């Protein structure tokens, strides 16, 4: 049994219910739930996969059927109008609705086939029309404005501007955040040098983001040269700087402490 069959024919529990019922319609008058279960298990086996969706759909269906069976065993419920409620009514109602929905969906499918033969057109609005700008209607635009209102608005704006100034805090100087954390930067550069031993300055810089980062990295390198932790070489002006690490580990500890 192909998987597609399951997708199309066994979409939902009601569908599954319908299908199984239709199969038994001809001569079997009473179908025990046990029998439906058995058939269902066969179906599952035939699919060779235990699809959780199909299984849970079946559980919903079986529970619905059991619920109705239980209601049938109990004394009939009486509704507000004093009529006995048929527990099957709800299921019948649902089945009718579902059957109608199935039928209508088939009708829609046919209609779509015919409608697809028409073609529509994308907008082609002439440039002259697109570029047209409506003249401003000043009477409408400024209908509720006059000079008095304008001067009142201006006073309000000024007043608000005054209110915004915090008389105390506005006198404080500005404190700027330091953008580059020197210690962290050192560790990053050291880490890079430790893992590379021999590297180019440009590669080292490729990990830096801002101008400040670049400058600090260069200063760290100068410091390293000073304490003889690295040896640098540059063939000619504007060339890349070749960095070679010399007993870097011993020296770095010193630098970090200082």
């Amino acid at each position, binding site marked *: 049994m192909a998987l597609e069959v399951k997708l199309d024919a066994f979409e939902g529990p009601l569908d599954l219910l319908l299908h199984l019922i239709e199969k038994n319609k001809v001569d079997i008058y*009473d179908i025990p739930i046990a029998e439906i279960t058995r058939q269902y298990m066969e179906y599952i086996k035939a699919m060779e996969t235990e699809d959780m969706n199909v299984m849970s759909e079946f559980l919903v269906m079986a529970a619905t059927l059991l619920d109705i*069976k239980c209601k049938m065993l109990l004394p009939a419920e009486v509704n507000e109008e004093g009529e006995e409620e048929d527990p099957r009514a709800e299921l019948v109602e649902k089945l009718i609705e579902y059957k109608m929905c199935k039928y209508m*969906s*088939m*009708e829609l499918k046919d209609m779509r086939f*015919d*409608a697809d033969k028409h073609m*529509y057109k*994308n907008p082609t609005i*002439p440039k002259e029309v697109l570029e047209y700008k409506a003249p401003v209607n000043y009477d409408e635009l400024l209908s509720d404005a006059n000079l008095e209102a304008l001067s009142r608005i201006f006073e309000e704006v000024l007043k608000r501007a005054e209110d915004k100034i915090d008389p105390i805090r506005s006198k404080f100087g500005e404190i700027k955040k330091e953008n580059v954390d020197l210690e962290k930067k050192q560790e990053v550069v050291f880490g890079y040098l430790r893992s590379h031993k021999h590297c180019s300055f440009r590669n080292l810089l490729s990990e830096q983001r801002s101008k400040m980062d670049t400058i600090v990295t260069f200063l760290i390198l100068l410091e390293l040269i000073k304490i003889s932790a690295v040896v640098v070489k540059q063939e000619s002006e504007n060339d890349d700087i070749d960095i070679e690490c010399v007993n870097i580990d011993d020296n770095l500890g010193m630098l970090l402490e200082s």
Partner: protein
Amino acid sequence: MDKKEAYGTIEAILFAVGNSVEIETIATALDVSKEEVLEYIDDMQTEYAKKNRGIQIVRLENSVQLRTKDDYYDALIKVTNVPKKQTLSDSAYEVLSIVAYKQPVTRMDVEKVRGVNSDHIINRLVELSLIEEKGRLNAPGKPIVFGTTEQFLRSFGVASLEELPEMSNDMIEEFKVEAEKEVEVNLKMDV
């Protein structure tokens, strides 16, 4: 404005805009009543029906739009790239028919009829502009309600929802009999 000029203007508008245009918008542009516009469009539809015309006016609720006649489909596919037809699964058609016939509906309403969660399909239909959100229900959780779109009307070739096929009474009666039988069969007690 004389009648002929009105026809010309309406054709110019519908052609340039390409999309559907509300009758009311046309009435405002022509400075005539909506009834007059409808009358003009009737005349034009008769004119367009002639063999030497390749286009026709289609009515979509309160709007109109130009489209090609289906007679020329075969010639057209030789020239233009036919927009790829979005195929819908059978379950998508089911959800669509529920929304079309029972709108406005919530996700829950659809699920109740089909018996399975249909959120995924609903989302897909919204994506295809066949259905759209139509507001929220004044009920617990304020669930979104869905309805069909103008694109739905276009795709299924109907001018309004009223033109959707109706179920005949015979059909409904038949379904009822079937459903009752099926339920009966299942309720014979012998677990």
